[in-house]
């Protein structure tokens, strides 16, 4: 059974903000992981 209940809604403001925030968060994590890997591999010139 699909656990998503389309008839339940958050207040309108949160219906708009939450998906935006989750998408931004996913992008942040991807950037952060890539940056961390790049720093670890020495691909980004940082102060030694």
């Amino acid at each position, binding site marked *: 059974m699909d*656990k*998503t*209940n389309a*008839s*339940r*809604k*958050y*207040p309108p403001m*949160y219906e708009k903000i*939450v*998906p935006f*925030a*989750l998408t931004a*968060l*996913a992008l*942040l*994590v991807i950037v*952060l*992981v890539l*940056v*961390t*890997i790049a*720093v*670890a591999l020495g691909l980004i010139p*940082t*102060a*030694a």
Partner: protein
Amino acid sequence: MNTVLPLLSSLISFVFAIFVLNRYRTRKGTHLLFWGIGTLFYGIGGFCEFYNGAFGWNPLVFRLWYLFGAILVAAWLGQGTVYLLTKPRWANGLMIALVLGSLFALFKVFTAQLDPSLMAGAGHTGSELSGRAIVTDGVRVLTPFFNLYGTVTLVGGAGYSAYIFWRKRVLLHRTIGNILIAVGATLPAFGGFFSRLQIPGALYIGEFLGIILLFLGFLRATTEMGETVSAPTPAN
């Protein structure tokens, strides 16, 4: 800025730790224990930064800062999320690896050669703690591995939880709380990265804003907002 911000971060972290450990005392849950330990590490790191800014260089304070504030804090916080979201067998296995890794890091940090003059750079006066003071090879290279584990587990876990609550349209306070926790957890990591790029104050600002969002997120996630979700109609 190199004394006030870390002092505030440290104080907030210790108050946060009291909240989390008190919740662990009353509700149990290994995730709360690890979050409590992680926030204590955050507070120790902040206090060491404050000490360095206020009283100057001290090798013991630096080693404590690097161990707890730079290497361990994110990973131990993330381990709490691992306990919350995965099976105990997985969590215990990763916990053993984390403890062994932490002991190795302890050994490496406390046997490393230090040179505080190396902390001063193009954008740094040297009054802000930086891993550049570590001369010995094989110490700083540990940090990204611990932080990668911490970031993926803590930020990923909080983001995943927020997504699940949002998809089901339940527990709005936990959706909001987890988003705040996830964003808060990324800020010290970005601060550390920009600090490596010699942007002065980036690390301390990132840590300060990070602990505020983490604390607010925890409070939001653990405090119900009342019925704010519109329930389905019986016809549905």
